[in-house]
């Protein structure tokens, strides 16, 4: 705030801060994140000078600074552990995603009329609202996001469109992108007969 005394006061210029594309931290903090190896790779490619500044032997030496040797060793061990953990977690999440199923259910409403309930889309990062809107437009019917009996969100489309929905998912149309076709199942549900 030195230049603000003379003439008209000037606004202070903001500092442009570079953030790591991998872990979103400023690159000097990548070492505390859980993806150091990938962060290093990215920085080396994107900003070689900065990489030199943060990860050269000299920098590593001076960084140890006031820390004792054991503490430093422990820190490094922790970082490695954290990284392995984060990787395992990401792997598990991916596996779970690949294993989760999307069910398209045809529900009989009365003899000739059906609704189609699509369940399990949120596991594939699909915006349910947008998908419902898309389906409604596609089939020119009503489609909405509702909670089913288990309290989970699902899309309910009016009319029997289960085959068309399956086709759309295989084609990866619009907001329905990213669902592997093998994970989609079609289920038919007959209305329970009312006690006669």
């Amino acid at each position, binding site marked *: *705030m030195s230049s*603000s005394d003379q003439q008209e*006061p*000037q*606004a*202070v210029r*903001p*500092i*442009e*801060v570079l953030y790591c594309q991998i*872990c*979103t*931290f*400023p690159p*000097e*903090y990548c070492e*505390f*994140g859980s993806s150091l190896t990938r962060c290093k790779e990215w920085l080396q490619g994107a900003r070689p000078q900065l990489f030199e500044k943060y990860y050269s032997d000299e920098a590593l030496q*001076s*960084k140890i*600074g*006031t*820390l004792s040797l054991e*503490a430093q060793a422990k*820190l490094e061990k*922790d970082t490695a552990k954290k990284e392995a953990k984060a990787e395992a977690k990401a792997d598990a999440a991916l596996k779970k995603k690949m294993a989760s199923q999307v069910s398209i259910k045809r529900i009989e409403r009365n003899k000739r009329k059906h609704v189609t309930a699509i369940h399990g889309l949120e596991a594939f990062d699909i915006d349910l609202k947008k998908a419902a809107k898309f389906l409604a437009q596609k089939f020119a019917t009503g489609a909405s996001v509702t909670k089913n009996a288990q309290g989970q969100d699902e899309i309910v489309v009016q009319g029997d469109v289960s085959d068309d929905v399956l086709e759309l998912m295989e084609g990866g149309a619009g907001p329905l992108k990213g669902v592997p076709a093998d994970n989609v199942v079609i289920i038919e549900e007959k209305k329970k007969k009312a006690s006669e």
Partner: protein
Amino acid sequence: MFKKFTPSTDIAGQTPPKSSVQRSIRAAVLQQWKIGPETLEEIWPKKESLIHVKCREHISIYSVQSVPLFFQHFDGPFYPTLRLLHRYPSILPKVGVDRGAIRFLLAGAPMMCPGLTSAGGYLPPSEEALPKGTAVAVHAEGKEHAVGIGITELSTEDMRKLNKDVAVEIVTYLGDDLWALQNL
């Protein structure tokens, strides 16, 4: 404060406050931060309306053009978001922690006195001593940018004297859920 924060469940509503309220917020920010009206104008132009994002537990986040700028807990001081602080580091007074404490800070732990008073730490000199309850930018040894924002639990003089217990309570830090929230 933001260690666990899920926008879909924790945000109650978004409303633009009345212009008179906006004026008082502007005045409060100018008074609490080391910032000139011109600089604030850059961050938050008068024409842009402020959006008040109400969250659980009396947290209010204020955003301009859906970018969160600062937040407040109940009637407490205004804290800038860490991204804003990185761009304008001079708005909050600084304290520094040593390298050993960074790891704990990034897990959201409050900062203890010894971390600030040790060789790697930094406390403002006695002439510029900070009272209890001041919002501070927490910097780290050997790093350029702030890692967190906190509120002092003791005056900086007491930190030196007692050298024990919690010195700075951390409200937001690098990698918490507010950091992940780039747009509202």
